[in-house]
């Protein structure tokens, strides 16, 4: 049994909130650089250039890449042989509170979805916990912007809709989003499970490196095919036209009911932030 203190969790989350907002994952940086080289549309190429310059400024000055520093999605993979000393929920929120306050990040959370008064410290975190084998605690902080979150969609397809139905729904969702989610985008797709599990899979798909394809060949091929189809739409960076609409399509799947085919599409912008640490 390993003991982990709530204070340690707080301080790691505080740091990850700040770092995730200034340092973009290397795979995303690499993808943007490649797309800039291959992009044939002039304005699109210029925009990708500014986006690259923006990453450097954010990193060098340690300021947020984007002013929408998001809602803090916190994923905890808790080893079953870990014991946490203290209140976990409070430790996570305290980490977010400190990270967003000390890091000069924007507070974008309202306490009530209808009453809409800002909580003032970006809490509560959107907390996802999972019990896994082992005695480690893996913490991932993913600040999620809502320009792209608002363009996401879920649909309960019929089993008879099959793979063609899935393709159609993904393309429709990206088409409807158009310029709104700050393309180039990363498309997270969850297939199977229940209504809520599909959405969670789609969000988790966004945590996977865009350089890694699904281990199942059927889904890996689907990822490649959808990326090609999305980029053939011609929406382009910021919607001005061009070959770079999406940087990657990441799909996660799980078993589902004989009567259903849930599909969720969670769209992320090019500021596809996430950062992890292991305690």
């Amino acid at each position, binding site marked *: 049994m390993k003991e982990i203190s709530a204070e340690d969790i707080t301080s790691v989350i505080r740091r990850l909130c700040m770092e995730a907002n200034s340092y973009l994952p290397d795979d995303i940086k690499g993808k943007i650089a490649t797309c800039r080289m291959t992009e044939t549309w002039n*304005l699109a190429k210029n925009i990708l250039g500014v986006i690259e310059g*923006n990453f450097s400024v954010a990193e060098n*000055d340690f300021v947020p890449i984007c002013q*929408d520093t998001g809602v803090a999605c916190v994923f905890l993979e808790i080893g079953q042989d870990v014991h946490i000393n203290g209140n976990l929920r409070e430790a996570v929120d305290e980490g977010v509170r400190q990270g967003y306050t000390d890091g000069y990040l*924007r507070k974008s959370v309202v306490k009530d979805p209808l009453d809409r008064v800002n909580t003032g410290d970006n809490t509560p975190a959107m907390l996802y916990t999972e019990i896994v084998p082992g005695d480690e605690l893996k913490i991932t902080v993913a600040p999620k912007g809502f320009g792209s979150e608002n363009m996401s969609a879920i649909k309960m397809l019929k089993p008879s809709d099959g793979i063609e139905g899935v393709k159609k729904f993904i393309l429709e969702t990206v088409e409807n989003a158009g*310029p709104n989610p700050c393309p180039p985008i990363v498309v997270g797709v969850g297939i199977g499970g229940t209504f809520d599990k599909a959405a969670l899979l789609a969000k988790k798909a966004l945590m996977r490196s865009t350089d890694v394809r699904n281990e199942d060949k059927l889904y890996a091929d689907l990822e490649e095919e959808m990326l090609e189809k999305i980029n053939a739409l011609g929406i382009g960076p910021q919607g001005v*036209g061009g070959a770079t609409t999406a940087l990657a399509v990441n799909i996660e799947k799980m078993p589902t009911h004989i009567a259903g085919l849930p599909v969720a599409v969670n769209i992320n912008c090019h500021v596809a932030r996430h950062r992890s640490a292991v305690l």
Partner: protein
Amino acid sequence: MEKRITTPLTAEKVKDLRTGDTVLLSGVIYTARDAAHKRLCELLEKGEKLPFDPKDQVIYYVGPAPAKPGKVIGSAGPTTSYRMDAYAPALIREGLKGMIGKGKRSDEVRETMKECTAVYFGAIGGAGAVLANSIKKAEVIAYEDLGAEAIRRLEVEDMPLFVIMDCYGGNLYESGRKEYLESVKK
């Protein structure tokens, strides 16, 4: 074409801008998002004075991050504009000439822009750190209680923008994409 523009943005200057132009904007602009727009339009309905005169002005749809010590402002890229569509026509009728944001606009906004000679600029969504560097001064002038959503008066220098919708009905989201797709067909 690249154009340098300085505010106030008169109808003459708007008429000179075309969809697809890249623009370096300098001068005073104002910030407002959803909550501030709601309040501005409530004032207009009651026939009361606005915190700033929108005539020949530009509104930037942004809720900046807090400024770090020694900085003028935190990261400050555009927010998605459609959430302001319900309010924009009333402000354009009051003389507002420019809006800066990202993403689609409603037909009503586009019609009002044509009717009243206004322009919709795009700033690069997600490029908040670079855009903040073109902001030289920032001051909250109304609704401080709204935090990031308060109305700010900004002084900008060579802010990099592009014209999405001009006052002639042009729309880069349609024409840019169409022209690009034609270019790859050839």
